[in-house]
Structures are given as C-alpha cells and as structure tokens.
C-alpha cells in the first residue's frame, strides 16, 4: 500500500474515534452518577482529555512504525499497522472515558501537553540547523575519504570531469580557484553595496525629510524582494553584454561570463541589506551625541563622520559581515551570469566560477549520487556552511554588544 493511502485510512479511522471520544467524555460529566459533585475542569476540557487519550497511543505507534520502516529494521505490513493503530485508539478511548471523574484535573493535563507540543515545535529550528550540519558533514566525510583535505584546500586545478570512476582523483579537486572566484565576486559586490548602502542609510537617517524617507525606504526594499533568479537573468542578458561592449570600447577583451557582471548585480541586490541595517543602528545612536557635536559648531557632515559613524561602527561592521555572508552564499546570480570553468585569475573581465556554482552544477548533471563530483559538492557545502556560520555568529555578537551599549 502507498504511504498516502495508509495516511488516508488512518485518518478515516482516527478522526471519528476522536470526535466520539470528545462527545462521550463531555456527556459523562453531565451524567447522574456525578450529581452534586463539582468537576475540576469544564466539560470541554474532559472532551479534549479524552481526545488526547485516544490519539496519543495511536500516533505513538504509527510514529514507531514509521521509524522502523525508515531505518529498515522491520517492515510492518500496512493492514496490520492500520488495525493495530485503530485498536490502540479504541483502547485509549475506553481508558480515557473510564478515567473521567470529578477529581481529574483534565484541563491542566491538556494544557501541559499543549505546552510540551509548543516546546517540540520550537525544537524544529534547532533540528534544522543540526540537520544541515550533519547532512553536509556526513557526505563531506565520504568525499574526504576519496580526496585528501590538503589537496582540496591547496590544489589549484578544479576539473571534476576527469574524475571518472576508478581513476585516480588526486589533483582534480583543488578548490583554490573556486574560492578565488567567490572572493572576487564578493569583493566586487561589496565595492558596490557598501558605499551606496551606507550613504543611503546616512541620507535616510540624517538628512531625508519624513516624506522622502517614506518613499525611498520601501523602494529600496523592493530591491531586496526581487528574486535572485531575476537578478541572474538581468546580469546575464543585460549587464554582461554591456560590459563586453564597454570593455571593447576601451580595447579590452571581456568574456560573456565575466566576474564583473554578477558582482555588480549582486552588489545592487545587497544594497538594501546594508542600508536597512545601518539605518537602524544610525537612528539608534542617541541624539545627545549628535547635539553635543552640533553645539560645538560642527557641521552636520562633520558630526556624522566624527561622532555618529564611530558610535554606529559595530552595527555597520555587523551589517557588512552579514552582507558578505549573503554574497558568498548567493547562488542564482552566479549560476546564470558567472562561468562554469574554474579559473584562477585576477582579471574580473575573465570568466570565473564560484563555490555555489559548482555545487549546483554537481547536482544538475547526470552523475550518480555517490560519484566523486556529487560528493565534492558536499565538501564545498561544508566550507560554505562554516564560513557563513562564522560570519553570522560574529555579526550577531557584535550587534548585540552595540545594542547593550546604547539601549
């Protein structure tokens, strides 16, 4: 039986039982047997209590069966599973109804369970992080069994096409060109994003009238909302030819997959990130600092340069780090506009490739899942994870320090 059908049968069995449980339990609280006695909770609470009694053993059993199925230890036949689960539910229902009595604190039992469920939900985000770390590390380990970490970190040629099964893979997976490409494109993006973003933030926090701010801020946010695949298309179709033409005009040779165009477009994408975070920190610099400086006869710009920006520096640094982390992990723009060929160069007009491009390429090809090239993607993913994690955590710590100082 298919998983979907099993779910359907279970639902059809359990839902009516739960409803029956609710009504039987509430009805019992009105029965003559308890005439004159005072119930601890409202009738509805007993109904919910009965539902909990009905469903919890049944769901627990199905969950166990699912785990057994996934780990492959025991294959539980579908009909047996459905029968057992529904029998368990019926048993739970019976016990639930039996235990309904005035002294039972149904409400607190149900509410404690709710809080536990809320707690479980909040663990999902932790599990996600753990899941990412484990899945990437685990597969990366397999990769590093085949390729030595040293070769991976220090090698200067990346040519996974030569890594056919059975052949020696030494010297094929050298990731330096990928890091160089990532670094180059990130640096170009930062050269665009930091000045524009920072000056936009200064303008909005220090100079702009409320009406101007009201228009400018959401307009900048639109830049952040545009999907990256759209930026990628724009970089590849519009910006790249422009750069090639411009380079030709100056007598230079530029590839259509040059590193400059994804870098520039990525910089534009990151502007709102830097500007909104910097705007927040600049506005939270206390006015007393500004007024002190202005009272000493400093111009507005002098106040900003010598008082406000130094005070806001931790926040700005934190924004910068987050932006770098964003740029390093950005995928679609580079996949569409940057090259595929690993190329170790200092010339941004040549095609370069990045870590993320190679990850995507490894999965969209037709290699087997355990081929060295696919596994190499996990190795690269691990590097990406570590770098962005470190950047994010430093940025979080820095901004927290800043907030403690001024708020």
């Amino acid at each position, binding site marked *: 039986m298919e998983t979907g059908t099993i779910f359907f049968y279970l639902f059809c069995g359990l839902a009516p039982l739960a409803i029956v449980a609710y009504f039987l339990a509430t009805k019992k609280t009105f029965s003559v047997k308890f005439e004159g006695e005072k119930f601890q909770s409202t009738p509805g609470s007993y109904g919910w209590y009965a539902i909990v009694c009905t469903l919890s053993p049944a769901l627990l059993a199905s969950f166990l069966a699912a785990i057994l199925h996934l780990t492959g230890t025991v294959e539980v036949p579908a009909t047996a599973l459905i029968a057992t689960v529904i029998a368990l539910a019926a048993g739970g229902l019976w016990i639930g109804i039996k235990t309904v009595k005035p002294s039972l604190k149904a409400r607190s039992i149900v*509410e404690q369970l709710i*809080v536990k469920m809320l707690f479980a939900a909040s663990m999902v985000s*932790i599990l996600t992080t753990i899941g990412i770390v484990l899945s990437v590390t685990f597969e990366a380990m397999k990769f590093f069994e085949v390729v030595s970490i040293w070769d991976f970190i220090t090698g200067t040629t990346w040519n996974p096409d030569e890594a056919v099964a059975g052949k020696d893979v030494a010297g094929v997976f050298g990731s330096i060109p990928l890091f160089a490409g990532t670094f180059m494109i990130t640096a170009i993006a930062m050269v665009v994003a930091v000045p524009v973003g920072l000056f936009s933030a*200064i303008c909005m926090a220090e100079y702009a009238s409320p009406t101007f701010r009201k228009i400018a801020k959401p307009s900048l946010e639109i830049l952040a909302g545009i999907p990256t695949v759209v930026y990628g298309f724009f970089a590849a179709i519009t910006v790249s030819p422009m750069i090639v033409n411009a380079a030709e005009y100056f007598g230079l040779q530029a590839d259509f997959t040059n590193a400059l165009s994804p870098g520039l477009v990525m910089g534009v994408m990151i502007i709102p990130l830097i500007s909104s975070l910097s705007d927040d920190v600049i506005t939270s610099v206390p006015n007393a600092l500004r007024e002190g400086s202005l009272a000493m006869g400093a*111009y507005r710009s002098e106040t900003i340069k010598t008082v406000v920006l130094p005070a806001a520096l931790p926040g700005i640094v934190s924004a910068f780090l987050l932006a770098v982390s964003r740029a390093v992990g950005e995928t679609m723009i580079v996949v569409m506009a940057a090259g595929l060929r690993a190329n170790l160069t200092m010339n941004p007009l040549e095609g370069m490739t990045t870590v993320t491009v190679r990850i995507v390429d490894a999965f969209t090809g037709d290699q087997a899942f355990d081929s060295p090239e696919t596994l190499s993607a996990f190795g690269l993913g691990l590097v990406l994870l570590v770098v*962005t994690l470190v950047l994010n955590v430093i940025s*979080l710590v820095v901004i927290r320090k800043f907030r403690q100082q001024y708020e």
Partner: protein
Amino acid sequence: MSFTIDKKVMKRRARRDMRFKMYSYTAIFMAGAFLVFFFADIIGTAASAFKQAELRVAVNYNEDAKEMGEYALDEDLSYLVSRGFTRLIPGKMRENRALIGTTIEKWVLADAEVDQYLKSKPNRLKKGERTLVDGLKAEGNARLAFNIGFFENGDSKLPEMAGIWAAAVGSMYVLMITLIFSFPLGVATAIYLEEFAPDNWLMQAIEVNINNLAAIPSILFGLLGLSIFINFLGVPRSSALAGGLTLSLMTLPVIIISTRAAILAIPDSIREGALALGATRWQVVITNVLPLSLPGILTGTIIGLARAIGETAPLMIIGMMAYIPEAPDGFTSAATVLPAQIYTWSSDSLRAFTERTSAAILVLLGVMLLMNGVAIFMRNKYEVKW
C-alpha cells in the same frame, strides 16, 4: 580670549558639508535609477511576449495529412506554421473522421522565427520566407494576437508553444506545502518562546539559532532537503512535497521572527487582565494574545511566502529543474516552479525564449508585489496601535 575666523577654512568646511550631503542623496538616487532601469529593461523585453504571431492558412485535411500533419498545408507555408500545430493534425483527423476531405481556413500558431520576424527581432528566417511572410502580412493573413497560450500551456521545446501554466500550478502546490508546514510550526515556536519559555541557555541557543538560520545560504537548505527528505525519508525527487518541505524550513525563521514581534507588541495589561479573571496561561494565549497578534502574524507569513515563491537555488538541488511540460497532478508527482521555469528558459539559446523569460519574470514579480501589497494593506488596516 578671542577667535579669529579663517573665512577660507570655513568656506572649505561648508563645501565639504554640501558635498557629503550630495553623496548621500546620490547613493539613494543611484539605487532608484537602477530600479527604474531594471524594470524598464524587463518590461521592455517582456512586452512583446504577450503578443503571438498567427497565420491564416487553409488547412486541407487530405489523405496524406493522416500520416504527416505538414501535408495539410501549402508546402511553403508549412515551414512557417508551428510544428506544435501540424503534429496534432493526424490525431485530430483520427478523432473526427468527418474532417477528412474538407478544407478549413483558420488562424493557426506561427513558428517562433516568424513570430520574431513579425516583431522585427533577430531571427533565422531565410530571404524567401521573409518575403512570403511580408506577403501574408500585406494580405492580412498574418497577425499578432494576444498570447493566451503563454498562460495556458506548460513548458515546451518549441518557444511558440511554451507557457507558464505547469510552473504556476507547481508553484502553487509548493507554496501550499510550505504554508501547511511552516505556519503552525512557526507560530507555535513563537508562542512558546514569548509566552512559556523559561530563561535558560537552551532558549538562548534557540534564539541565536533562529537568527542564524535566517542568514544561512539557501543552497544549503537544498543540500539538507536532498539528504534528509529525499535520501532518508524517501520523498519523491523533484516533487512539490520535497520542494515545499525544504522551503518551509527556510520560511520558518521569517514567520517566527515576525510572529514574535507581533506578540511582543501586545501590552502586558491585556495578559494581566485575562489572568486576573482566572484564565490559565494557555487560555490567555488562545483568547487574547493570538487574536490580537493575528494581523502581524499573517503579514509576516505572507512576506515569508512571497520570499519562498521566488526561491530557486534549493529547488535546483532537489531536482525541480527538469523539463516538466505537464502540470503536476498531486504533491508527489514531478513538478517545476516559476523561478525554475525562468531559469530553464533563460539558459535556452533560442532568441524567442528570452522574451518569454522576461514575461514569466513579470508574472512572478507581479505575484510577489501583489502578496507584499496585501501584507502591507493588512498591516495598515488591522494592526492595533497600543
């Protein structure tokens, strides 16, 4: 004590001050100019995709056409008509035998190259074909009609037949799964953290973790989806379910952060009032906190979903990039999504796909803008200011 004011220095300072102010405005205007240029560029390339060339031809359902649809048309014209039309002719004749032997004059889809030629764009038509098309146009037998197929068809190898319907349906399925999983989990997490969580190291870890999760590159979520959902849990590859689950993990932090902000904005006096009337903590949450923070929660959810609908990289890893011409008929069948469709078209070398890519982008941006507009509208209308 006396001051001597150096006029030169003062002037220089004033100039520098003006310059600085100018720089800051320039920065904003540069970003704005980019935005205008960007939209003008996309709309400019997309505009022509909403029109599609059609030719009025006599379709002669003769005996030969039963085998090869091309024989139903005049030989010269058959190269100008879309193969998507001619290849269906034999099937149509088998279905409707009354057609055989008749000749019907009708508007049919033109080949993509004819389409590009009529739109005066670069094309690969030969000289003779060009004069033929010019002649048809002069006789009123060639026209640019509204491109309804773009919204009704799935992907196709023929540009003139390719549409966004399959991808749009796929996006809808993925979004539904994302909503089903991320909304309850996100709201539950936020409620727990704001209303019930004790102040201990575990909770601080969760807080740091959520902020961190929001900044992890999306492609790593794709790796997670591949190894956990597909390889471990056995969710079918390139299905809407796999994509939706992956995206819901990405959307989770957005929903949590906005829900927490909405819950935090509710003054404690509301909670204390309810508690004083004998409500339990959970009753306070369900009867007061949740209803009051609902506008904020929904706003955050819509914004999170608007981000999810434009996400591509993790879905590429999961295999939603394949050529999938049919709209998915369930959560576990192979599906593609709008941004993935944009990506596949953009990497196609045929010129006619470029305008379709732009048009698909316009549709995607329109949907996202609409979602964000609804979110802002809801925030302004229903949000309670305390």
